[in-house]
């Protein structure tokens, strides 16, 4: 596998292998020498057309942990808005020696376009393209679920039998899309909870159950409740009337947390709107995995870089 563009690229075996390697990477991160020489001499270019400090730093940490050299390109704002500049930027970075390009962009399909058009020869990792996908996020979420719910014996296991509820702005969320796909590949069952305005049309093929409110989702006693970031701009386009109504019906709060099994976990990809999609006390509770998702992100990204390097075809 030369690129990671979509979670569709991952079979269950490939995904489990990445989770297992990430397990070993977590181990490395806990030692005195937190680095491996695996990507020594290789260059990883972080190309972030859409701002995201946390994801960028996570990829940077992963690359450095494998002894790769890191170069960063950010283009805040819309000064770089035409496709030609994207092509030029990437070809320039490759000419400067980039072996891996980690690409985040606000347009859906950018990573696929780069690969399909053969603009560069480097390995492409999709770090989030518009409202399409965010594969490494789905992988670190799956890893977090597996570690928390299967514990130390998780090696080699997928997520069969685990029930996951994803709640919030599914329509605009690449995290939701990637997760829904990967969870299904790994054998988990998925329930989506959102107002109809925030659900994509014709998602029968996603294999997920759709319910209207978070309370309905909680009634199914999920092992995982994944909350998604809400963009407040959605209110002015008529997706939902107000913050208070949104958090009343789809916000994860203490009362709802108490109705979940005590072994269930609450997740959020970050950054959080405390009080909107997730209350502060739930975010800080023992059942919340928000901080370990960040740590797992570095290990997963190390595993992904390692997995792609072997295949230059």
């Amino acid at each position: 596998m030369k690129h990671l563009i979509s979670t569709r690229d991952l079979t269950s075996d490939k995904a489990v292998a990445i989770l297992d390697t990430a397990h070993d990477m977590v181990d490395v991160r806990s030692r005195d020498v937190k680095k491996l020489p695996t990507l020594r001499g290789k260059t990883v270019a972080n190309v972030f057309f859409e701002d995201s400090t946390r994801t960028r730093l996570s990829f940077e940490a992963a690359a450095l942990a494998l002894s790769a050299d890191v170069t960063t390109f950010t283009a805040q704002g819309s000064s770089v808005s035409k496709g030609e500049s994207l092509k030029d930027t990437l070809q320039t970075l490759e000419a400067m020696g980039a072996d891996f390009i980690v690409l985040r962009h606000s347009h859906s399909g950018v990573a696929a376009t780069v690969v399909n058009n053969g603009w560069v020869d480097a390995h492409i990792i999709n770090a989030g393209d518009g409202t399409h996908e965010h594969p490494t996020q789905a992988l670190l979420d799956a890893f977090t679920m597996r570690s928390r719910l299967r514990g130390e014996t998780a090696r080699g296991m997928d997520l069969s039998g685990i029930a996951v509820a994803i709640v919030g702005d599914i329509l605009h969320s690449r995290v939701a899309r990637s997760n829904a796909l990967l969870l299904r590949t790994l054998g988990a069952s998925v329930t989506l909870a959102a107002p109809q305005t925030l659900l994509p049309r014709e998602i029968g093929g996603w294999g997920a159950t759709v319910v209207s409110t978070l309370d309905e989702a909680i009634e199914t006693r999920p092992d995982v409740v994944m909350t998604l970031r809400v963009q407040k701009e959605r209110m002015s386009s008529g997706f939902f009337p107000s913050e208070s109504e949104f958090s009343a019906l789809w916000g994860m709060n203490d009362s709802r947390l108490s109705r979940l099994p005590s072994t269930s976990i609450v997740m959020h990809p970050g950054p959080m709107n405390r009080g909107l999609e997730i209350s502060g006390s739930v975010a800080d509770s023992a059942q919340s995995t928000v901080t370990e998702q960040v740590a797992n992100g570095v290990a997963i990204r190390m595993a992904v870089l390692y997995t792609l390097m072997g295949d230059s075809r």
Partner: protein
Amino acid sequence: MTILIRGASLFGGEKSDIYIDGDTIRDVGSISTPADRVIDANGLIALPGLVDLHSHLREPGGEGAETILSGSRAAAAGGFTTVHAMANTSPVADTAELVELVAERGRHAGYVQVRPIGAVTRDLAGEQLADIGGMANSHAAVTVFSDDGRCVGDALLMRRALEYVSTFGGVIAQHAQDPRLTVDAVLNEGRVSSELGLRGWPRVAEESIIARDVLLAEYVGARLHVCHVSTAGSVDVIRWAKKRGIEVTAEVTPHHLLLTDDLALSYDPVFKVNPPLRTAEDVEELRRAVADGTIDIVATDHAPHARSTKDCTWHDASFGMVGLESALSVVQHALVDTGHLSWSDVARVLSVAPATIGRVEGYAAPLAAGSLANITLVDSAHTAQWDSSRLHGRSSNSPFLGIVLPGRIMSTIFNGVETVIDGELVDPETLRNT
């Protein structure tokens, strides 16, 4: 100059000879009169010269993608002898001066009759009416008015426009797309757009405008033409309207008769078009609608674009596909070879009917003695993978590249002058000398 076409199958039927003298068809039948030029049409189907009611020639202002000359050549290569040029040029064709300029350049190029379409609103802004009367009374004699590219979305303005245009015997060709329902929309709203995370273009945005417009047309007693119908629901509305006696005509593009939104899964912007490609159910219903006459004509919506606006991400890419050269082949593939249409029907939907809607003279009695000599000869048995050597405009954004398509234009005759000989376009100097 006299031309004798020998042994052509008229409308795919009986073999016949056609004798052309100057710009007119003198005789049709078994002919032995000597002629300056003899075309052996054995094995070829004779059709009237094709008439496109919807094309973008980009000149003035967009010459990087196409010019009136290059677009005319592309049209002739596709068997067309009349092309209507949409008004969304730069500047917009909203005055008599502009439409006369376009008509004159078309005349100078000499490959086809270029009929300028006039804008409905000034600068396509959707606020004030354009100089409709001026354009109608100009040398260009505009009869079709359209803001295509944009929808005339305001109901009051559409009412006024319908009323005003009918004063001059013209017709409004509406690009049906409710602007409020399609903000930033780039792909049919459905399973594929949900999967790809692309903003969807809901079918109801087209259907609701058509529904409104046919009722307006009925109310004010005006003619209405609907551009590039793309959904099964739109077909239902038009069928209902026709049953009611409303004077509405409709067109469909070749690509909407063949391609579906699954093609967007590759994120290749060659498939990005407005209105977007829909589903297989829509394609099937559109084919049936052409067969039963609910959709009156096929019009190409030839939309050339510079390479740089397609060699980019889906989001950034321009909307549109070229289609003049491939139209007849796609129609044969999607409608004739599937049994929906006969070649006589093809003559109707690609020549007679569009000429009627556009009030173009000379096409009412196709391939008949006394008519203008606008003829195209097609080798329907030819089959090949569509490639860029078949494209003759300035742009190559064709969604059919790589698809095996039947048919090849072997000859096009425009007002008695050959523009395509033995499958090859005549070059501009030769044409000027003829």
